[in-house]
C-alpha cells in the first residue's frame, strides 16, 4: 500500500471530522453573556388574549422557563413532547416566546405585510400549532418582529432560558431540549434554584 493512495482516504476522514463536529458540537454551545444577568425586560401581547399584555416582572418570585418557539421551527416539534411532559408534571411554569412567527418562516415573504395582518396570521398559525401539538405553556407571548429575541440573544430556535426568582437568567439551552437534557441538567438546576431561597 503506497502512501499516496491513502491521500483521498485521509482527506475524506478529515472532512468527516469537520462534519461530525459541525453536526454535534457547535451550534449548541454558544456562551451567552447574559448568564447570571437580569433578563431583559419586555412587555408583549399574549397569544391567548392579544388585547392583553404580559410583562417579565409578572413572574418575579418564581423559578420559571422561557422557551423560544415558532410553528415553522422543525426542531421545536422534536422538543415539544418533552415540554408537554414537563408541564404535566408541574415542576416549573413555562412561558412561551413565540419568535418571529411570520417573518422568521423562510418560505414566507412577509416584507410589506401590514403589522396587524402579520399579527393576525401569526396568532392563527401559532394557535393552530399548539392545538395540534399540545400547549405546555402557562401562556405564550408574541414577539412579532423579534426585538425581544434580539435582547435575549436568540441565536436559533428553539432556545430555553432558566430564570430565577429575582428575574436573572441562570442557564440557557440552545436547540431542542431532549429528555436526557431535562433529566440531567435542567431539572437539577431548577431544584437547586428552588431550594436556594
Amino acid at each position, binding site marked *: 500500500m503506497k502512501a499516496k493512495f491513502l491521500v483521498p482516504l485521509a482527506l475524506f476522514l478529515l472532512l468527516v471530522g469537520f462534519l461530525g463536529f459541525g453536526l454535534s458540537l457547535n451550534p449548541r454551545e454558544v456562551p451567552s453573556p447574559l448568564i447570571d444577568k437580569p433578563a431583559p425586560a419586555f412587555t408583549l401581547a399574549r397569544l391567548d388574549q392579544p388585547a392583553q399584555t404580559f410583562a417579565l416582572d409578572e413572574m418575579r418570585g418564581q423559578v420559571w422557563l422561557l422557551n423560544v418557539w415558532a410553528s415553522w421551527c422543525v426542531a421545536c416539534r422534536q422538543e415539544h413532547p418533552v415540554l408537554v411532559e414537563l408541564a404535566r408534571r408541574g415542576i416549573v411554569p413555562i412561558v412561551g416566546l413565540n419568535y418571529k412567527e411570520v417573518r422568521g418562516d*423562510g418560505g414566507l415573504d412577509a416584507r410589506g405585510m401590514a403589522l396587524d395582518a402579520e399579527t393576525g396570521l401569526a396568532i392563527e398559525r401559532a394557535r393552530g400549532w399548539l392545538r395540534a401539538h399540545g400547549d405546555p405553556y402557562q401562556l405564550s407571548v408574541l414577539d412579532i418582529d423579534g426585538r425581544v429575541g434580539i435582547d435575549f440573544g436568540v441565536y436559533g430556535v428553539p432556545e430555553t432560558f432558566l430564570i430565577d426568582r429575582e428575574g436573572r437568567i441562570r442557564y440557557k439551552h440552545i436547540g431542542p431540549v431532549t429528555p436526557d437534557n431535562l433529566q440531567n441538567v435542567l431539572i437539577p438546576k431548577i431544584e437547586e434554584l428552588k431550594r436556594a431561597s
Partner: protein
Amino acid sequence: MIPELGHFALVMAFALALVQAVVPMVGAARNNPSMMAVARPAAQGQFFFIIFAYGCLTWAFITSDFSLQLAASNSHSDTPLMYKITGVWGNHEGSLLLWSLSLSLWTVAVTVFSRHLPEAFMARVIGVLGWVSLGFIAFMLVTSNPFDRLLPGAPEGRDLNPLLQDPGMIIHPPLLYMGYVGFSVAFAFAIAALLTGRLDAAWARWSRPWTTVAWVFLTAGIAVGSAWAYYELGWGGWWFWDPVENASFMPWLLGTALIHSLAVTEKRGAFRSWTVLLAIGAFSLSLLGTFLVRSGVITSVHAFATDPARGMFILALLVVVIGVSLLLYAWRAPKLTGGGSFGLVSRETTLLGNNVLFAVVSASVLMGTLYPLFLDALNLGKISVGPPYFEAVFVPLMTPVVVLMMFGPFLRWKDDDFGAAVRKLAPAAVASVVSGFGIALAIDHVTWRTVLGLTLAAWVVLASLQLLAGRLRERAGASVSSRLSMIPAAWWGMWLAHFGIGIFIIGVTMVGSIDSNLDLRMKDGDQTEFAGYTVRFRGVVDAPGPNYDASRATLEVSRDGKPIATLQPEKRVYRAMGMPMTEAALDIGVFRDVYVSLGEQLPEGDWIVSLHHKPFISWIWAGCIFMVLGGILAAADRRYRRLAERTAAAGALQQAT
C-alpha cells in the same frame, strides 16, 4: 391499513437488500454460481417491494389520509391531484423513499441490460448496490419512517409548500435523483473492478453508457431546477450558489470528468486508478450532497432545521460507504500501473488537464460550501460564502477547461505535433477573440468578463464547426449524406454536448452583461417604457385557485405600437399555510425574455411591479438541452449494443456446443 402495508413492504425490501448485499458477494468470492445467481431475483424482488411501498405512500396522499403524519404535513384535501402525487417527495422522508426507488430502478436496469457481463463481476456489482440500498432503507426505518402515523388524525392537512406546487417541481426531483443515484452504478462497477482486480478496457466500456445516462439525468435535473428557480422564486436569477444547488453541481463536475476519463481508459487503457477514483468521488459527492441537504449541517447555524440523529446516521453511512471504498482503493489501486503512454501533446493530455481542472473546481465548490462550517468548527466566527467567491474561483478555472475542450478533439491519441495543431486552430482562435471584442462593442458592454465570455463562446462554436467540417472532408468522394451517416453516434454526442457548452456560455454571458430590471409602482392605466418595450398596467382582479386565493394583474407589452404579449403575474396566498407566493409571468423569446412579477399592494391601492428584461436567457436552457441530447446520443452508440449482441451470441454458441 395501507400505510402499514407500505411499512411492511419497506421492511421486506430491507431484508431483500440484505440478501442482495451479502449472498452474491460471498458467492463471487467462493466462486459459487448458485449463490451468485441470487443477485438478480433479490434485486428485482427488492424493486417490487419498494415500488409497492411507494405506491402505498402515494395512495395515502391521493386519498388525503391525514392520519399519516407525512400526508398531514405535506398535503391538503384541496391540493390538485398532480401536487398530491408530487407532494410525496416534497419532504424529507418521501424524498428518501424516492432515492431508494431510483436506486432500485437502476439496479433492476443493470440486471436486465447487463446480461453479457461475467457472472462473478455482475454478482459483485449488484452486491455493492445492495449495500448502498441497505444503508438508505435502514436510514428510513430507523430515523425517517415515511409511514409514521399521526393519532388522532388531523382533520385537514397543512398542504405542500407552495413553492413546490409548480410543474417544474414535478420532474425536477425525479430527474435529479436518477442522476445522483445513477452514479451508484459507475461506483458499483468501480468497486467490483477493484475487488476482482480487473480494471481493464472492458470494465471501462461496461461502465461508460451507465455513467453517461446518469450524467444525462443529472444535467437535465439541474437545468430544470435552475429554470424553476428562475421563474418561481420571482427574482429572475437562475443560479444562486446556495448549498443545495452546489450539492447537485459537485457530482455533476466530477461526473463530467469521469465520463471523459472512462473514454481514455477504454481507448487507451490509461488513467485507470484516476478513473476509479473519479467513479468513487462522483458517487461520494452525491451522497455528501444528500447529507448536506438532509442533515441540516449547513443551515443549522440559523435554525435547527433537522433532527441531529438523522445527521449522525447519514454521516455514519458516508463513513461506511466512502471510507470503505477509499480504503479498498488505497489497497488495490497501487497495482494498477501501466496503460498506454502518451506524449505531452496528445488528446490524453488535454483530457487529463481538464479532468484535473474539473476535480479542482469541485473541490473549490465543496470548500466554499463547507467553509462556514469549517470556520465555525474552528471557532473563527460565523460567515457565509456568497456568489463572489464562487465566481472568482469558477471563471478562471473553467476558462482553460473550455479552451482545452475544443483542442482535444483536434489532437490525435498518443502523440501529435504541437505546431500543426496550433496552425490548424489559429484562425478559429483569432476569429474568436475578434468576435468576442466585436460583439462586446456592439452591445456596448466592454468589460473583461463579457469579452472573455463571448470569446470563449465563439471559440467553442467556431472550433466545433471546424471539427465538423474536418470530419466531413474525410472520405471525400462519397455523398454528404453517406459521409454523415458514417459518423458514429458517440462522435455526434461529443460534438453536440461541446457545442451546447458554447450556447450555454452565450446565454450566461449575455444575461450577466446586459439584463435590466425596473421596480415601479403602477395603477390601472399606467404605462411605462422599459428596455424598448411599452408596458401598460391593466389592473388587478381576484382569481381564486383550488387551494389558494390570488390577485392577478394584467400587463400589456407592446413594441413600437405592436402588441407583443399580455402577461398575467399573480400574487397568491395559499390557504392552508397562509403563505404568500409570487407567480411571475414571462414572455419567452429566442433572444430575450420579458419577465414580470407582481409585488405588494401599497396602502393607496397602487401595486409594486417588477419588470425584467433577460437577453438570451433561453440559450442557457438550450445549451443544457444540447448537452443532454449529446449524452443520449453517446450512450446510444451502436457499438455498445453490438457488443451486447456479440457476447449474447457467443454465450448461445457456447451453450449449444
